[in-house]
Structure formats: structure tokens, C-alpha cells
């Protein structure tokens, strides 16, 4: 098999003495769509945020494209331009219009000229179906539209890895579908993705691997077919049993 795009080794993280991640080993290969599921407080979001170092682990090493990131003088900002992130609460920049939301980081972090950034931003906004809203203020958009702008904003950086932190949890039920279909299309194109989600349907259909987390550990990691039909670990069985009820 080829090189993992991302590799976390022996990652430990605690907040105020409470262990959140306990000796995590986690690898993501190019083209994979890894879905992290599990109960609240199990460490899914913290694991995701450790990948682009919004959280700094206490111990362990993080390799991105084979390069160690934590115990070296690599620039965290360079790695972050290669890793897109989509948040539960969208976090669009409210003082910028939709287009500027998608160009500002291209210009500041990638030093792309304004014209080029503009072109790329429009291309991705079209892709998420929002070409008609490029000059709208984020506040005037619906939740689903905001999240699609957030996805376009991340994609405009041409990342090699996309992180999604419960991207549909803050949405009205009617708007979940439009965001999931954008993500599904992205997965189909071969984008490498790590998705923290409670959407089991999405995990099952789109995921290439499902990881169940509990108590700061990855309990089980398997392709969806095996994960949902013949779960190995008793914790997975209990989790799935609750879902079905």
C-alpha cells in the first residue's frame, strides 16, 4: 500500500488533567473517507482538531505527507493550507461577503494574486451551487448555504485533506441533505476526508472506513460493511444497538 497522507502516533492529550486522547494511533491514506463516530466526549472532535493542530497534543507525533510536524521546525501555517476544515458552527467571516470569505486566505496564506483567487473562489462557489450569492453577506444566508460557503472556502485553498467537524449538527433537518450531497460529491472525486459525524447513513454510504471512539481511544476501525453488519468490539455492538432502537 502507498504512503499514508496523515499519520498520528502515540498521541496523548488531556485538558486540566482529564485525559481526552489516550495513545491514539491513526492513519489516513490518500482517497480515504474516514468517519469518526462515537458518543459525546469520546474525543472525536479533539482528534480531528489535533490533525491541523488547533489542539496541540501533549505527547506523540503527527506526520503529514511523511513529514513530522510536532518535533521539528516545520511551519504549522504551511501544513494548514493543505488541510481544509469545516466547522459545526460554520465560522464564516461576517464582515466579509461570500466571495471575500473564499479569497482572503488564498491571498494571505497562498499569496495568490487577487484575480486568480477570485476565479478559483467563483469556481468552488459554483460547485457548491452558490454562484448567485457571491456578494451576499453571510448573515443573509441559511444554515445550509453558510455551510456550503464554508466548504467552498476550504476547497478554494486546494487542500489535499479535508476535515469536517460535525458539519450538519447545527443545521435544520431540511438543510442537512444539501450539505451531505456536496460532501458526497467531493468524496466521489477522490478527496481524502476525515469526518466527525452523527449521520450514520452518510457514514455507511460514503465512508470508506468507520472509526468508533470511546473514552479517548479508537475502539474499532473497519470498512462500513464490516463495521455495521459484524461489529467486533462489544462497545461497537452496544453503540449500534442503541442507534437501531
Amino acid at each position: 500500500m502507498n504512503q499514508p497522507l496523515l499519520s498520528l502516533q502515540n498521541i496523548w492529550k488531556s485538558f486540566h488533567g482529564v485525559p481526552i486522547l489516550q495513545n491514539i494511533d491513526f492513519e489516513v491514506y490518500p482517497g480515504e473517507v474516514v468517519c469518526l463516530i462515537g458518543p459525546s466526549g469520546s474525543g472525536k472532535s479533539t482528534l480531528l482538531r489535533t490533525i491541523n493542530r488547533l489542539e496541540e497534543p501533549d505527547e506523540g507525533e503527527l506526520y503529514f505527507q511523511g513529514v513530522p510536524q510536532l518535533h521539528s521546525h516545520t511551519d504549522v501555517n504551511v501544513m494548514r493550507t493543505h488541510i481544509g476544515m469545516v466547522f459545526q458552527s460554520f465560522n464564516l467571516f461576517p464582515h466579509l461577503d461570500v466571495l471575500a470569505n473564499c479569497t482572503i486566505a488564498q491571498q494571505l496564506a497562498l499569496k495568490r494574486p487577487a484575480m486568480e483567487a477570485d476565479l478559483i473562489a467563483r469556481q468552488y462557489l459554483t460547485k457548491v451551487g452558490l454562484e448567485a450569492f457571491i456578494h451576499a453577506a453571510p448573515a443573509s444566508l441559511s444554515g445550509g448555504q453558510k455551510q456550503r460557503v464554508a466548504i467552498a472556502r476550504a476547497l478554494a485553498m486546494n487542500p489535499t485533506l479535508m476535515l469536517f467537524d460535525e458539519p450538519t449538527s447545527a443545521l435544520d433537518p431540511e438543510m442537512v441533505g444539501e450539505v451531505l450531497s456536496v460532501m458526497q460529491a467531493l468524496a466521489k472525486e477522490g478527496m481524502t476526508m476525515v469526518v466527525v459525524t452523527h449521520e450514520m447513513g452518510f457514514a455507511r454510504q460514503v465512508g470508506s472506513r468507520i472509526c468508533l471512539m470511546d473514552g479517548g481511544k479508537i475502539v474499532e476501525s473497519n470498512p462500513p460493511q464490516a463495521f455495521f453488519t459484524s461489529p467486533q468490539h462489544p462497545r461497537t455492538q452496544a453503540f449500534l444497538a442503541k442507534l437501531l432502537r
Partner: protein
Amino acid sequence: MPVGFLEGVGYLLEHYWPLFLRGLGTTLLLAALGTIFGFILGMGLATLHLIPKSPQETRLQQVGRLLAKGFSRLYIQIFRGTPMMVQAIIIYYGAMRLWGSWPALLAGIVVVSLNTAAYIAEIIRAGINAIDKGQHEAARSLGLTYGQTMRRIILPQAIKNVIPSIGNEFIVNVKDTSVLNVIAVTELFYNSTSISMTFYRQFEVFFITSVLYFIITLLATAFLNGVDRRLGVRSVVGIPTSATVPFPTHREDPQ
């Protein structure tokens, strides 16, 4: 000078209007420049206070960061913890002792600026802290540096939100620059005192003075409410209280 109140006021306005107006001009100059320079210095103080801890911080960086933060805290504590009247005397006569005589008006501008900086630093810091931390995370996740995040994402939002409070500082300064009469800055209060010394008719003189202060603060309030409405931020309600009482919009952090 006539004996009656209204006649007295009329007499004073007729003969001393240039002195009142010049005093008012100086007061406005002090308040405006003090607020502008105070804003610039206050930005600097707030920045020093908020220098972030980087994950791979060297010992030297840590010492520098803590010193900057300590300086900012001490500065704010001192300037908010002593009356501006006392600050004026210390700065004016202190500098005179060290470097020789200097113009009182310049000293006045320096004092108001330094004093206002302490209040505005706290306003800006509260404004920055009030911005959702998701904004910071989103910007950093896109590869923006801390500085770029602050300048392009956080500050534009924070400043817009605190413009009403900065406007309040200007209005407060219009009133509080009256204390600069102790170092003989010829602002409105000082000139009023001079006029009243001529006739010993304090009531009539200071009636005019108070009306002038009131008109200015009223106009400034109306102007600022207009600005706030245009910016779409919450509006100022009335004329604020003195700067010597921390303003309720300042969010104090527990220390």
C-alpha cells in the same frame, strides 16, 4: 456689569464670547486629539496584553511575552487608578523638572492621550475577547498567521463593535478635560474661571459654561448615534458618566 441674572448672562456673552469660544475650541481639540492618540496607544496596549503563547515558545519569548503583558496591565491599572487631575500635575511638572519648560497645551494633549489609552485598551481588549473563538480557529485553520488573523479577521469586527464605546470616551473627554485647568491649559473651564474672577459672578459665568458643555455633548451624542445606526451596531442611549468610573461596557476579567 448688570445685577440681574439674565442681564448678567447677556452682558457676559456680549463681552466675553471670544474667550468662551476659544476655551471651547481648546476643549474640543484636547478631546478629539486625546481620543485619537488614545485609540492608537490603546491598540498597542491591548496588543501587548494579548500576545499569544506559541506552542514552541523559547524561554526568551516567554519572558518577553510576560513582560509585555505585565507592562500593559500596570499601565492600565495606574492610569485608571489615579485621577486625571493628579496625572496632569505629575506629567506636566515632572517633565518640566527633567527637560525644562514645555507648553501646557501640549502637556494637556499628552495627559488626555495617555489617560484615554488606558480606558480604550480595556475597551478593545473586551471587544476582541467578545469575538467568537470560532473566528480565530477558522482563520488559523486556513493557514493565516496570528497577525493576519488579528488584522484581517478579528480587529475589523471588534473595532466595529466598540465604536460606540470609543465615542463615549470622546464625550467623556469633552467633560473631563476640565481638570486640565490645574496646569493652566486655557480650555473652557479655565477661561470660565478667569472670567468669573473679574466680576465674582460665578453663577452667571458657569451657567454659560455648562450650557456650552451640554450643547457639545448633546451634538456629539446625536452624531455618534447616527454613526452607530449606519454601522448597524447597538446605539448609545445618552450622555455617559465620567471616565473616573469604569464604563459598564468594559468587561472586567477576574484577576
